[in-house]
């Protein structure tokens, strides 16, 4: 089926080579980081995780969100998602690969990454995260490829794939729960030490993932003959709406606990992120952009007129995605380290090499996504023709 990705329009190839170019630049910067060390990034003694781990966290959510189309389709036989399900499954594959790459580029000794499996350590959440992510990747490759292969031949998917699909439905929330546990179980990091961390992660994942899926599917509909159907977009829109509301609600719970209890350790990170402390507030503009976009998206999503209008729905989806990308892919991780254990403020901002390496990983993700979507769309187009 991969041969479908080898033929395409001029526009397709320009896009592919554009992504390859970004990957190439990212790779050159990675070689630099590999020889110099992680000091090439903006991370330091106090803020020891940054953009890489932020992106990793955000993308685990995107990967897990595939379940939002898989579950209604396979468990409830929700026919409207018949066409879009493969896009959800195929979105999970590059998302997980990006997660693994972001972990890899964040390691100080990347050549030793196999130590995680050579010396398995069940008490480490990171060990479990590596396990669940890899299994989720394999599940999605297996399911997506098998289902699409059957479709190509015009037959129903084989029966043996069903158990794997059910496992993947349970597996999806588990990968994001385990990822939340990386942060939620650390003593002394008050910002992360919250029981609803995993719940917040899932809510934001199930808002940002389907939002991205809406944008991608609209893009595909515009440039190819493949159409997931008007109703699929509307259902996805409702999913985004409910989970975005849940996400904002959860955020409100955190704010209440911090500010009504008035415990300084719980207040400080919020203060730093949204107001700045001691004149230091590098992340304030980002966090307010995120907050304003969240409100803006909710206005468009809650109102049935604007949700039903595909133009405004796509705008709302973009707003959700960017808002959560800023909040989870950046503020949440960096905010956990500020103030540091000595109640001092050390700020963080990514460097140019760090940004290019991040862009490079995203380009690899989009490259894989493009190839997978090209295969899926070509097969669908053949059916139509």
């Amino acid at each position: 089926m991969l041969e479908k990705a080898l033929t395409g329009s001029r526009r397709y190839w320009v896009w592919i080579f554009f992504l390859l170019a970004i990957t190439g630049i990212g790779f050159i910067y990675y070689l630099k980081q590999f020889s110099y060390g992680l000091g090439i990034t903006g991370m330091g003694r106090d803020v020891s995780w940054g953009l890489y781990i932020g992106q990793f966290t955000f993308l685990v959510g995107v990967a897990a969100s595939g379940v939002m189309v898989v579950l209604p389709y396979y468990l409830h036989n929700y026919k409207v998602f018949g066409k879009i399900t493969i896009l959800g499954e195929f979105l999970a594959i590059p998302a997980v690969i990006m997660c693994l790459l972001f972990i890899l580029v964040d390691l100080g000794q990347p050549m030793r990454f196999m130590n995680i499996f050579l010396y398995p350590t069940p008490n480490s959440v990171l060990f479990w995260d590596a396990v669940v992510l890899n299994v989720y990747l394999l599940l999605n490759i297996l399911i997506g490829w098998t289902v699409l292969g059957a479709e190509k031949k015009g037959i129903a998917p084989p029966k043996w794939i069903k158990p794997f699909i059910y496992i993947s439905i349970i597996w999806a929330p588990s990968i994001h729960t385990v990822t939340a546990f990386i942060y939620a179980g650390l003593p002394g990091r008050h910002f992360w030490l919250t029981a609803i961390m995993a719940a917040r992660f899932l809510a934001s994942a199930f808002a940002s993932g389907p939002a991205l899926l809406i944008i991608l599917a609209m893009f595909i509909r515009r440039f190819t003959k493949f159409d997931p159907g008007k109703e699929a977009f509307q259902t996805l829109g409702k999913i985004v709406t409910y989970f975005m509301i849940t996400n904002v609600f959860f955020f409100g719970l955190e704010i209440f606990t911090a500010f009504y209890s008035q415990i300084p350790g719980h207040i400080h990170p919020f203060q730093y992120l949204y107001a700045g402390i001691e004149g230091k507030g590098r992340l304030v503009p980002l966090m307010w952009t995120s907050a304003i976009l969240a409100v803006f998206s909710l206005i468009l999503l809650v109102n049935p007129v604007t949700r039903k209008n595909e133009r405004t729905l796509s705008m709302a989806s973009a707003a959700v995605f960017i808002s959560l990308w800023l909040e989870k892919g950046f503020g949440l991780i960096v905010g956990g380290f500020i103030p540091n254990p000595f109640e001092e403020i050390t700020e963080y901002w990514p460097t140019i090499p760090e940004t290019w390496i991040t862009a490079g990983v995203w380009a690899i993700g989009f490259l894989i996504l493009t190839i997978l979507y090209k295969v899926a769309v070509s097969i669908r187009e053949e059916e139509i023709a």
Partner: protein
Amino acid sequence: MTMNRRKFLKLTAVTTIATAGGISALELFKDSKLEAQGILPLEVKPLTAKRWAMVVDIRKFTKEDNYKKIIEACHLTHNVPDIGNPKDEIKWIWTDTFEHAFPGQEHKYMPEDFKKMPFLLLCNHCDNPPCVRVCPTKATFKRKDGIVMMDMHRCIGCRFCMAACPFGARSFNWRDPRPFIKELNMKFPTRTKGVVEKCNFCEERLAEGKMPVCVEASKGGLIFGDLEDPNSDVRKVLSSHYTIRRKSELGTGPGVYYII
């Protein structure tokens, strides 16, 4: 490419004997007929304990200068680099103010000189260390004698331990540290870029029968010993003075106590 079985068994046998019950292998072989032709002098007797701990007697230090010798001695002994910027900084033992060392314990009306007084900080070698709990490769682990150790050969540099440590005791090698070590101690390794490091309670000196270098340099300001031995110096000091520990409410069980 494995060692032949006999050798392997021999090696593990010695290891087991040496670690079980704290009997030193040296003592064991001292009495036997085995003749020592090797490099290690037989009179060396390692210092052992069931639970190593330290008491910092703040009254003995009032100025930054009092600490300088200690910090220098430690960093010189362990080839700790002086990189010269706070972002990439590596430190095993250092000082900070009361307000930073014990956040939440300070108040406005404390004596002025107390507010400015430097506190000696280092890895707490916790009873229940979160850094050990989160490490995905067992590169950091707790020894039977309570020392929280780093295996630099195994560390992958994921820095999960740095996020987990509530005491800021861990440093990451953001770049190659060697060019920043003024004077190499040939008896101790340096580190490579991309691994985490911290204080090791001088386990390499304890194995040679010597007290930690900071304790030696402190001239009585630092008391080091076995917490499980009622007659040890630390126990005597702890039972006769009021002491506090950093962030004990987090349940990590720090092994460094402070006499205020």
